[in-house]
């Protein structure tokens, strides 16, 4: 048989190659070689990014099973960069006594989930979509439970896998009903058959719930905080940025491609879900003491904002969404980078522990401040631009009240972000976190993120290049 089409799915194949090389390295290299593991992983990721960056043509492969557009490359690339940053930040964590021998697994599992996301994004068929989704989530459970002898990690892993299975059960049920009422699973054939009949509505609801679980939209978000808190911090960062970003993009693709005839229905759904998500997540975030948990709720609320890009179903929304994911990635990973290095060095993760951080670790405090400001949408940081554009997109589609509610919610979110800032700069502390030096990898990652936070907004080329990719479906 002719398998030449595999050559066209470049990013995925190269990623598989990366996975395999790391796997082999893990198997073959001895304990002495472990210190080269991280440089190797990062290098390979850089290569992967390079490959992704080289312009590729749109592709329509495997009879429509796999679809590839420039916009998808952009998204995949953003996800890859996010993964690279996660790898960089994982340095201190992976050097720990109880993890050092597991770093191979960490890289392979993480990249497997990334691969799953790649396929999920490029899927042209619900089957591939589903498999990609599962590939993205099942190894994730292992990652969440990575520190398996840490009580919280284990618990988080169990919670994650159970809820994930429950949700994929419902999602599958929805898919089966879609199949039953249309007779096909190919995205290109589906719109003609979608009529919005009650069965399809129910199918859509179940499908949407399954995706909302991944994106962690209210009321499907409840696992998020627990898992984020329990998981190792790097994994949380990865989960909150890469996993979420890919799911949102995939959802948008499906909504536009498949459920186009039901646009009023899904807009209606997203409308209420966004309001609920942003508001409830913000209210929860107000009272969190644990920073990871706090960032979990913050990321839920950010997911609500992401959905603002989806709701219009427009090209502007798509661009804004991708841009938002990029910016959100920079900011959130910066925040997680700081938190994780502090957690590794001092074991402290409560808000109260951060009191007076600026006095002892001004640089880290400053980076965290920038990240939080960006998350809150304060100019001149990138978060402001991404928020503005996503509001603009939603507004353009006529969701004025929704935008307004979201805007009001930014005020609440600003409050809790400022609480952290306040802790670092203002609150007095008898025993602040002692000054320490971060490792080089973390520094690089933080510099990357900070650069992103500062530059992505002001330098318009990035947005414009995303825009130039077009609708991208």
């Amino acid at each position: 048989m002719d398998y030449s089409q595999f050559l066209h799915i470049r990013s995925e194949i190269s990623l598989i190659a990366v996975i395999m090389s790391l796997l082999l390295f893990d198997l073959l290299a001895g304990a002495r070689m472990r210190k080269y593991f991280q440089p190797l992983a990062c290098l390979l990721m850089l290569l992967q990014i390079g490959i992704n960056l080289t312009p590729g043509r749109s592709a329509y492969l495997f009879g429509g099973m796999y679809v590839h557009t420039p916009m998808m490359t952009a998204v995949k690339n953003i996800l890859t960069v996010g993964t690279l940053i996660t790898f960089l930040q994982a340095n201190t964590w992976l050097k720990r006594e109880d993890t050092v021998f597991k770093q191979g697994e960490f890289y392979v599992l993480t990249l497997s989930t990334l691969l799953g996301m790649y396929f999920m994004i490029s899927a042209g068929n619900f089957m591939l979509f589903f498999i990609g989704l599962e590939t993205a989530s099942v190894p994730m459970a292992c990652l969440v439970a990575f520190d398996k002898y840490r009580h919280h990690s284990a618990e988080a892993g169990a919670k994650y896998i159970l809820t994930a299975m429950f949700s994929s059960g419902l999602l599958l049920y929805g898919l089966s009903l879609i199949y039953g009422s249309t007779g096909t699973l190919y995205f290109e054939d589906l719109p003609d058959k979608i009529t919005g009949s009650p069965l399809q509505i129910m199918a859509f609801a179940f499908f949407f719930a399954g995706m909302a679980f991944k994106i962690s939209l209210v009321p499907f978000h409840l696992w998020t905080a627990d898992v984020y808190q329990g998981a190792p911090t790097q994994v949380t960062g990865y989960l909150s940025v890469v996993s979420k970003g890919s799911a949102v993009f995939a959802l948008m693709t499906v909504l536009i491609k498949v459920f186009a005839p039901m646009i009023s229905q899904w807009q209606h759904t997203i409308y209420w879900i966004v309001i609920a998500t942003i508001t409830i997540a913000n209210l929860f975030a107000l009272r969190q003491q644990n920073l990871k948990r706090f960032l979990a709720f913050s990321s839920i609320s950010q997911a609500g904002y992401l959905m603002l890009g989806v709701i219009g179903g427009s090209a502007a929304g798509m661009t804004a969404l991708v841009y938002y994911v990029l910016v959100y990635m920079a900011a959130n990973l910066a925040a997680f980078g700081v938190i994780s290095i502090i957690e590794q060095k001092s074991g402290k993760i409560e808000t109260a522990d951060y009191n007076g951080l600026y006095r002892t670790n001004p640089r880290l405090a400053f980076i965290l401040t920038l990240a939080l400001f960006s998350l809150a949408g304060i100019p001149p940081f990138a978060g402001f631009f991404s928020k503005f554009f996503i509001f603009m997109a939603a507004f353009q589609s006529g969701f004025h009240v929704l935008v307004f509610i979201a805007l009001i919610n930014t005020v609440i979110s600003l409050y809790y972000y400022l609480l952290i800032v306040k802790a670092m700069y203002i609150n007095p502390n008898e025993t602040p976190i002692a000054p320490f030096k971060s490792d080089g990898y973390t520094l690089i990652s933080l510099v990357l993120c900070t650069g992103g936070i500062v530059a992505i907004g002001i330098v318009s080329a990035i947005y414009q290049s995303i825009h130039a990719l077009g609708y991208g479906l």
Partner: protein
Amino acid sequence: MDFSLQTIVFLFLATVIIVCSILTVTTRKILRAATYLLFVLFSTAGIYFQINYSFLGAVQLLIYAGGITVLYVFSILLTYSQRKKGDRLKSSKVVAGLTATLAGLGLCLFITLTHPFTPSHFEFGELDIKTIGFSLMGMGKYQYVLPFEVISILLLACIIGGILIARRR
């Protein structure tokens, strides 16, 4: 509906599935639950056989009944703990769960059963294994080599993950 053999088989399978499903989730003994699950899985395979998807039935038997259930039994035995207090949550939770379930069930049944599906036409005849093979290995439309390859990665990742979690260190 005349009571042909098909009907009787179906009714039998359906009864087993329904009864055993409910027993699976209501029995107090975890091991029994696994056993009832096995019955359900068997009956499901029976349904596949009945609609002439023998390949599917075989896969079901092999993977589910043969693989997974055994896994369950082992893990149940492994985690078997002496202090049994009955496998029940507080009644309020049961009520909440039951209400949600019944509401969902009612809604789903109502919607699915009132949906005007395309007229069903069932023709006897097994699937040609060659068709299955080509479909699985082809690259065209309605052919599934790509998912097949992807799932292999998934399985690989799962193996690694499983080892990671399950091993002692």
